[in-house]
């Protein structure tokens, strides 16, 4: 088997997102920010969102990490930009549910856009965290109470 096993993980679209990350920048008018560390590898992801009304007007991320975490963050920002916070939270839930092996409907998956491709991560349990960390940061950023400390 060897490296051919990885073909399902490092798909072109994933490598493309990792090499040409979308929305990898700070958001000047962010209404909420969240930093999450992956203590396994020391990687860090910062997600910043600008919510207007109930809609995500703008979103960006910064930080460093592996191919998977970078690609996932990039795909995540593309997937949720312009969505309502409720829709975005639903998507985050779909993604993290899949990551722990729960099934979701085709419809739910469709909504994830490019990001659904990262469901191939299930085959690589040790890397699931890399793929979910940006979705988790999004979730925490959107649900954060005003007085909550950034992590």
């Amino acid at each position, binding site marked *: 088997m060897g490296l051919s096993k990885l073909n399902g*993980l490092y798909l072109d679209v994933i*490598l493309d997102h*990792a090499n040409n990350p979308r929305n990898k920048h700070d958001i000047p008018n962010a209404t909420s920010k969240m930093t999450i560390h992956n203590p*396994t*590898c*020391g990687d860090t992801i910062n997600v910043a969102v600008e919510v207007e009304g109930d809609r995500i007007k703008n979103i960006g991320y910064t930080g460093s990490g592996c191919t998977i975490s970078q690609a996932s963050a990039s795909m995540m920002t593309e997937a949720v930009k312009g969505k309502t916070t409720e829709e975005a939270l639903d998507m985050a839930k779909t993604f993290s549910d899949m990551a722990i092996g729960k099934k979701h409907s085709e419809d739910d998956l469709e909504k994830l856009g490019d990001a659904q491709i990262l469901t191939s991560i299930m085959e690589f349990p040790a890397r699931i965290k890399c793929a979910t960390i940006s979705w988790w940061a999004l979730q925490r950023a959107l649900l954060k109470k005003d007085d909550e400390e950034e992590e």
Partner: protein
Amino acid sequence: MANSINDSYQDFPILDQKVNGERLAYLDNAATAQKPQQVIDSLVHFYEHDNANVHRGVHTLAERATEQYEAARTKVQHFINAKNHNEIIFTKGCTDGLNLVAATYGEQNIHEGDEIVITIMEHHSNLIPWQQLAIKKHATLKYIELTPEGTLDMEDAKRKITDRTKIVSVAHASNVLGTVNPLKELAKIAHEHGAVIVGDGAQSVPHMPVDVQDLDVDFYAFSGHKMMSPTGIGVLYGKADLLRAMPPYQYGGEMINTVHRDETTFADIPFKFEAGTQNIAGAIALGTAVDYLEEIGMENVEKKEQEIVDYVLPKLEALPYITVYGPQDPAQHTGVIAFNMDNLHPHDVATALDAEGVAVRAGHHCAQPLMEALGVSATTRASFYFYNSKKDADQLINAIKATKEFFNGGTI
């Protein structure tokens, strides 16, 4: 037991398997070592014949268990050449032992304005206990830095250790850089300033002869699981007079002399520090691992690992896209080799190597301040033990080349 150190891998049933369709090359020994059949058998034998709680029992099984448990203590004593068996305390692991020293000796002897000196290459287990103690006591934590070659800067050590220093705590061997620190020399400097020295033996005891009396360390902690013993057992060595003067760490069964409603007197060492039911089978199996290592001879273990490093390090360094951390000279390098591949993230490297059957670790290796000092957020680490072979080394090199090729499309 295998006939020679070169077929010792035959004693390790786990090594005879394929992962991802490829032969397993287990190069994550710095995280935990594999267990020879002898150690596994020792566990099974104990549970199938002699299992009982120790010390408190009069019956036959209890007596057998007690005898084997105390025999294991004596084996460890001789293995690291402690003066007395009562200087050997069984712990849960290296982390447990280091925390014990910080919470008892440290708690008792560190006061406001005192200094604790550690090195920038410490594992979190030999860093955070001292950092938190320093914060609590308003003491100062100082780090000895690295030379440009990736070894400990002994000039800096002489500057940092002063008469205000009460505790020096240092890894005997680094779990990232592959360096061996001059612990004996550091002990001398510490003692000249009236400080005690703690050695973190997690990466040394499994790999080289260790003589605590010759090193003249005051405390020395290590883990069983990194030297082929079960998980959940470790050792803290301490000089008897220091141990006697320290308060207990945990309270419970076995560590007492008399207990009254409002007062307790404690047992003598080592029992004072072994509260509650210990990892009895683990300690006995650790004794078996010591037997195994002594049969091979620690000089031979060290030599065999050196041979592998002599073989693999130059091959690794010859790859233009590889950066090796720590000393570049194989003679100065233990079997722990941390490296990075161009701008490919260590996590991606480790996943790729795993696909090729090579088990390595990727991340900060519980040494974040060291990572910061090296200017990286993570590295990939291959770590060898005596049962590894040149075949494992070749498999690593080939897998690295294949990984480079695989990711060549991307410029990550």
